[in-house]
Structures are given as C-alpha cells and as structure tokens.
C-alpha cells in the first residue's frame, strides 16, 4: 500500500484500487472479503466492519469539502462550507434546523447537486468529473452510482423497502449492484442482522418491526455494501425515546470498529462520547469546529453558546 499514486480526478485512468468498476469486481472479491474478515468465524465478538473497508488510500482524507456552495432556487443554503474528515474519524454535525447540515450531508453522496466548490471522497470527485479543459460537468449515472455504493447512508425515516423482508432488504443491493451471489449475500446479511440484534426478525417485513428495529435493519443494509464511509442523517430523530438507545448502541459499535462516520444528530450525549470532532453549523456555514470537550464546555462563538443553551 506504499506506492499509491496521488489520486486523479479524471475518470479515464484505470482504477486499480478496491474502488474498481463493478465489472472488474469478480465474484470472488466480495467472497474474499468475508473469508479474510473476522466475520468468517461465527464469533459473536466479530466486528460489523470488514477490515477491507478501512484500508484505502492512507494519507488521503476520507472526505474533503472545498468551499461548497448550494442554492435551492434563489435561497442560498450552503455558503462556502469547507471541511476535512480523516480516515477513521467520527464527525458530528450539530446546528439549528435550516442550518444546512442535512443538505451538506446529502451533497457528500450527491443526493443533492452543488453549485460551487468540490467534494472529494477518498480522493475522488463525487458527482462530477473534470472534462478536458478543466471544465467540471456532472458525472454519468453509472459513475455516480459507483461512488454512492462506497458510501453508506442511514436516513431519518429509515426508508426500508416495504415489499421486501428484512433479509431481502439487506441482500438487495449486494446482489443487484455488486452482483454478489445470493447465497454469499444471504450469509453476510444473516451475520449483519445478527450483529445488530435482529437474528430472529430476518423474515419479517418492515411493517412488523418497530422503529428502532427498522433503523437497525437500515444500518445493516448500508453496511452490507462494505462502505468506506457512513453518513447518518438524524438517524434517531424519528424514533421514540426508548428506542433511540438501541440504535445509538449499534452506531457506537460501528465507531469503535474504526468506521469513518459523519453524523448529523441532536443527541449531544452521543456526540460527546463518540465524536472526534464536533462541527457547529448555522445558516449555511460552519461557525465552529473542534473536539467535543471544547465545543460543549468552552464554546467560543456567541451563536454556538446560544444554540447549546437551548439544547442542553
């Protein structure tokens, strides 16, 4: 892994990394992932995260946002947001509603288009490519889908597929996108659902699961793609208070195993315990950023102080 060339933003270079196009990804690649990872054992202590997901271009930040601007019509929602997320770092973004934190999260995997700036995930431009002449144009559907497959996202409203069982939800993407054989994908899905504590609910449809259980299935579904980055969009905001704990437990386990996470949340306790850095956003820009102790105990900015006063 020493001789990694500096990642280009052009897409005509053949890709030799794990992020190779799906057609190059052989059937055995995913199977090897399972064989090599501790998940191959039936050890209950085995991690949720496969080691392969963690080793990428070391030295290149996992997420790099440079002066991101976004408008919805005439309203400017993101005004020059710049931030860097290192490999294995856990970032928690907090802020009042309308501050653009969810929008920024959605820009990271190109669920929203941006009008200015760049976002790079693991050194690769997301959603856009550079044409000859340096012009930045929107990327093709296939390339965007490829990038998105390496980024996992968990939504506030779970967005489970209601016409599929929990197991089918989890194997849907690996079988259809990565073309993993169904047996392998089912095996992995059983493991993941077991790890999140839903081994007895694999054949239930989402309408037979509680909110917390649905969100845990959603997390397992995102993890089934072996992403190198996980995005959490207010994952516990739509849950009853007594169900929040079980989801936070899974998120905490994920964090401990070294997954790079960007979390938008209102759960300050979680932020304090798990975050490496807390970022406070307000009205489309980053007001303050720092380790949780600094932000929560010694907020510098006036706006941070008033927000924390309201929340805590």
């Amino acid at each position, binding site marked *: 892994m020493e001789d990694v060339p500096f990642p280009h933003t052009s897409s005509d270079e053949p890709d030799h990394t794990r992020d190779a196009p799906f057609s190059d990804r052989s059937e055995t690649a995913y199977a090897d992932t399972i064989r090599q990872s501790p998940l191959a054992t039936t050890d209950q202590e085995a991690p949720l995260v496969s080691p392969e997901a963690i080793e990428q271009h070391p030295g290149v930040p996992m997420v790099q946002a440079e002066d991101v601007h976004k408008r919805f019509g005439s309203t400017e929602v993101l005004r020059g947001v710049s931030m860097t997320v290192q490999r294995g770092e856990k970032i928690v973004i907090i802020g009042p509603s309308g501050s653009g934190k969810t929008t920024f999260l959605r820009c990271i995997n190109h669920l929203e288009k941006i009008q200015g700036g760049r976002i790079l995930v693991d050194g690769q431009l997301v959603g856009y*490519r550079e044409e000859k002449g340096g012009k930045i144009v929107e990327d*093709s559907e296939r*390339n965007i889908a490829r990038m998105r497959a390496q980024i996992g996202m968990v*939504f506030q409203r779970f967005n489970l*597929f209601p016409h599929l069982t929990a197991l089918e939800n989890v194997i849907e993407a690996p079988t*259809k996108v990565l073309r993993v054989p169904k047996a392998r994908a089912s095996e992995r899905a059983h493991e993941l659902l*077991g790890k999140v504590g839903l081994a*007895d609910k694999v054949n239930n*449809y989402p*309408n037979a699961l509680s909110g917390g259980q649905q969100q845990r299935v959603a997390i397992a579904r995102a993890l089934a793609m072996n992403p190198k980055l996980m995005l959490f969009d207010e994952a516990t905001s739509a849950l009853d208070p007594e169900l929040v704990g079980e989801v936070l437990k899974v998120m905490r386990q994920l964090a401990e195993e070294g997954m790079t996470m960007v979390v938008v949340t209102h759960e300050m306790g979680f932020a304090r315990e798990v975050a490496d850095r807390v970022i406070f956003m307000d009205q489309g820009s980053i007001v303050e950023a720092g380790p949780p102790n600094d932000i929560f105990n010694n907020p510098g900015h006036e706006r941070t102080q008033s927000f924390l006063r309201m929340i805590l």
Partner: protein
Amino acid sequence: MNPFQQIWDFIVYIFTLGGNFDWSIVGHYLFNSFILKGVWLTLLLAVISQVTGSIIGLFLALFKDPRFVVTASPPFDRIIKGLLWPLRLFADFYIWLFRGTPLLVQLIIIYNVFPFFHLTVDSFTAAFLALSLNEGAYMAEIIRAGIGSVDTGQMEAAKSLGMTYGQAMRRIVLPQAFRVIIPPLGNEFNSMMKNTSLAAVISLLELFGTVEQFAAAIFASLELFFVACVWYLLLTTLWSLVQRQLERRFNTSKQVKWIQPPWWQRLIGGRRPALALPQSNQ
C-alpha cells in the same frame, strides 16, 4: 280470466316487447360459432392492446419523470442528457393528441392512412394500433400517478445503495407503484374490452361486428344486440372478479414471509404454506 293469468300475460308482454322480441333467436345465436369467434377476437384484441398500451404508457411516464436518467458511459451520457427535454416534449404532445381526439376518429384515420404509403393493413392490425396508441396516453397518466404515490425516500435509499435510476425503478419503485395502479388499470381494461366494439366500423369481425352482420342478415337487430350484451357482460364481470383478486393480493400487508410449496403442489392443493422461520446457525 283469473288475475294470475292476467299478470302472467302482462309479464310476457313486457319481456317480448309485445311480440316483437323473439327469445328463440337469442337462444339460437348465443352460442353460434361465429359469435364465439367474435368473442375470442374481442378478448384477444383487448388483451394485447391493453398490454401494449401499458408499455407505451410506462415509457411516457418515465420520460415525464423529472428524475429520469439514461444510464450510459461518458461521453454518451452528456449527449443523452441533452436529448431528454425533446423526449419530454414528445411525451406531452403525444398525451395531448391521443387524449384530445376521439378513439373512433383515431381508429378510422389509422385504418385509412396506410394506403397513402402504399401499405396495406388489415382491420385487426389497425384496430390494435389505434387502441394501443390511445391506451398509452391514458396509461401514462395512471402510471405517473402510481410512481408519484411512492415515497421519494425509496428512490433516495436505493440510489444511496448504489443502484442506478433504472435498477431502483424496476426493483423498488415500480413494484410499490403497482398497488396504486391496479384499480385504474382495471377500469381501463374494462373500457378496453368494450371499446373493441368500435373496430366494427373498420370491418373487423369482433363480437359487435359479427352481431351486426347477423342482425342485418336476419332483420333481428334487437335480439342479436341482446346476445352481444350478454357476452360483453360476461367478459366484464369475469374481469371484475379477477381485478378484485388482484387488488386483494397486492393490498394485504404481509407481516412475515411464507414459504410457498411449489406451484404444482399449490395447484393440486397439497401442502399449506409454512412460516419462514430463521434457521439457528449459531
């Protein structure tokens, strides 16, 4: 004359329209082989026109979807993206045209336009074309409504897992949209079976056409139209039963997956479906 006899005479008078309605003709022609052929043609025409119309409608609905993307590699993706707006325009024009003119007029025009291009077209093909094209315009709106009824979060979740628009539509959105599409689709097929009668004007011998021929031959239009009504009612009633079964099947929200026995066992009614319980592997 006793009152019962009077009442009976009155009833007979009503039901034979004062002797002008001959029920024996009805009985004679009800299962006539040409009539049955006509029924079969009606059913066949209705089914293939509805299927083709639905496919046309599906594509039109997709063209009109603002999220529609054609998956292609660079540099073609930019080219195709540029072609999307004329496609959308075409879809709007098509729907406006085919919903805005009567089906009968479309039928006659399509039947008569082919000789100008030195092509011959038989009535069945012309009827199939006209019915499909017309149905496509209506199905487009129905399917669009069905797609719109699916939560946008579904498409977003599918995309965030790395699915392309096409995959997400096929595997996630359209299966859910189908539940909303069934009732109006049932309605449309019902109309379709009856609209095939219009093809009689371009001399297609479907049910109504056949009946008309007989009526002209034996000067007994009322009795024969009654025969036609019986058959149309039979077809539409059978369809409404099928539609109800379809709706029931797609509306029950399942809680747990059932393992069905193989189809042949289900047919002979051998096994009951079993609950799919997870195997304990640890």
